[in-house]
């Protein structure tokens, strides 16, 4: 076999997207799309469920605005006003689970919904109110009675199971590797007890910063749980570009953020390669990429601007939508918006911020 046709550099035949200069440096920032091909499409009729960290809420809102079927399995009461619904976390995510920051949290939520795990952690009494430790900020003050908290939790887990069985597409936004765990049975809490709700007790709770192997195991288990309930579902992982509010790891918060996001990014990539009908969508790269000069972050260098979300959703719809969305969901991003002036920040419900910002003020 002649080798003459193989003597050239193998990179020479690569497409433009493989080259930094052609794909990033010489491309207008607002149209940079760090995705090559989506493995599946989403139709307007597909039931799309979301869960994850604060950033996942942007996806939920834009999917609805785009005319896609955002799946809400725990919708509450139809007569309530929208602001009241949001206040009580109805429709913020596909069920009333609040922010799910870690892969272990997702895995345990699915296990609880399927009746495979019953955490030992009791409800938290907070004055006259009762809080569910696995979603302590799900409504203002908490529940008004133990009975209400218990019934609501049972209804919630039913809704999560219904969501798992009925969704067509599940989008999960990975947020953190740091978490607080019950020593008794390893149940993961969404926030540190004592920070906004609950009481901190080092005998009962311990800090964990998950390793990449653990996150991969947890995501794999969560996906297997989901596929058992719903074999044909499609899954998209994203990594939240929003940095940590605070770290308990002992490292600098910037370094801790890099560790956390790197681990999550690797784990998401592994899932996309390991499972069929499973994809990674690079919202993290779009927001944090140097090409935008940091303009997709607000002045706190943490929250994401409207322009950043516009860019993310433009790319999401372009690659994953089977048909174009309504214009409101994916407005074009004019170049002049990529400046540090006049940036609009979009409001989201963020339990991590709510709990740890208060701690920072006290420190």
């Amino acid at each position, binding site marked *: 076999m002649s080798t003459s046709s193989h003597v050239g550099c193998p990179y020479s035949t690569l497409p433009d997207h493989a080259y930094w200069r052609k794909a990033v440096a010489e491309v207008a920032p607002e149209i940079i799309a760090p995705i090559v091909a989506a493995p599946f499409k989403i139709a307007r009729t597909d039931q799309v469920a979301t869960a994850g960290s604060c950033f996942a809420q942007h996806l939920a809102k834009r999917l609805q605005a785009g005319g896609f079927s955002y799946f809400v399995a725990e919708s509450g*009461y139809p*007569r*309530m*006003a929208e602001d009241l619904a949001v206040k*009580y976390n109805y429709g913020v995510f596909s069920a009333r689970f609040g922010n799910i920051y870690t892969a272990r949290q997702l895995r345990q939520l699915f296990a609880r919904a399927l009746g495979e795990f019953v955490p030992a952690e009791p409800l938290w009494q907070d004055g006259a109110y009762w809080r569910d430790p696995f979603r302590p900020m799900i409504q203002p003050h908490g529940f*008004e009675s133990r009975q209400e908290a218990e019934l609501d939790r049972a*209804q919630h887990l039913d809704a999560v199971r219904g969501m798992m069985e009925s969704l067509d597409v599940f989008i999960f936004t990975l947020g953190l590797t740091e978490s607080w765990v019950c020593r008794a049975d390893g149940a993961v809490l969404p926030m540190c007890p004592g920070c906004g709700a609950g009481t901190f007790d080092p005998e009962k709770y311990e800090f964990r910063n998950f390793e990449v192997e653990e996150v991969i195991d947890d995501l794999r288990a969560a996906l297997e749980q989901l596929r058992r309930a719903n074999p044909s579902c499609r899954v998209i992982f994203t990594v939240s570009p929003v940095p940590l509010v605070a770290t308990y790891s002992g490292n600098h918060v910037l370094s801790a953020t890099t560790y956390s996001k790197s681990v999550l990014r690797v784990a998401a990539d592994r899932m996309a390669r390991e499972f069929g009908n499973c994809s990674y969508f690079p919202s993290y790269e779009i927001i944090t990429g140097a090409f935008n000069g940091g303009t997709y972050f607000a002045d706190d260098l943490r929250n994401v601007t409207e322009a950043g979300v516009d860019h993310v959703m433009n790319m999401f719809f372009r690659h994953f939508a089977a048909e174009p969305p309504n214009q409101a969901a994916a407005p074009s991003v004019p170049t002049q918006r990529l400046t540090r002036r006049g940036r609009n920040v979009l409001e989201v419900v963020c339990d991590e911020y709510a709990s740890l910002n208060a701690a920072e003020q006290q420190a």
Partner: protein
Amino acid sequence: MTQEIVSILVFGDSHTQGIAAQNFEFVGPDMPRPMTAMIKSFFAGAGFIAMDSVVTYPDGRSGLSPMFELGLRHWSGLDWRGNPTTEGALVHKHLVLSLGTSLSDYDPALDYEDRSGGMRYIFPHDIDFVLDARPDLPVNPSNTLIPVALIREMYIAILAPFRQGLSALAEEYAGRIWILGSPPPAESNDAKLRKFNSIFPDISEPVRLSSPTVLLKVWLLVNQCVRDICAETGVQFIDCSPIAGDARGFFRSEFINDGVHGNVRYGKAIAQHLATTIGKAELKRQR
């Protein structure tokens, strides 16, 4: 000794019809003597609650509604033309606003939409909630559980115009204002469903009302909201449940004919309750 007249005007919705039959001078055994309660009532129309007492005109000006003003004229000893009546010389002036219970406002299973001027009732949801103060009222497991705090916030929002109207009225009205809470729901929906079907015969889908237990919970919440609003606006609240409620808190069956509204017997009992409550307050004030 001079016989003192405590004059009371009751102004309100359909429940007031029963009280309206009690236009009488009342000297009950519980009345402080020498005192007579003179009760006049004015039926303002179905669905009336105090929010209807204040209207906002297109030019942004607010004022008492024409119907309410007519009632006040009646109260003030003037007829509807503004001429003095023989009842003008009254010693004390008490205005009782009798609250009603509109089906669409108070039954969480009911909603309606306005289509070309006509209302169309829709039946979106069976909900339930835990009322910690009444553990004897069970939660139906097949209903959607809603946090009681959310339900309360929703009714507080519904009652916002009432709060606004009551606050404005308390400033404008020289006499003393009392709010008579609405009576509780009946223990059975049967008569109510018959009435509903007769009013809206063209409804295509089966009428579905909340269960009496859910309605009682809602009523207890709303009653408390109204009580809180009264406290905030400096208006006296008269709870009718000690008179109107049975052992479980439902509207006593002998007080209802149509499944919803208080009958004449209810009117008589509540008129006596008003007379003694207001009479005693009047006596206390004088001392």
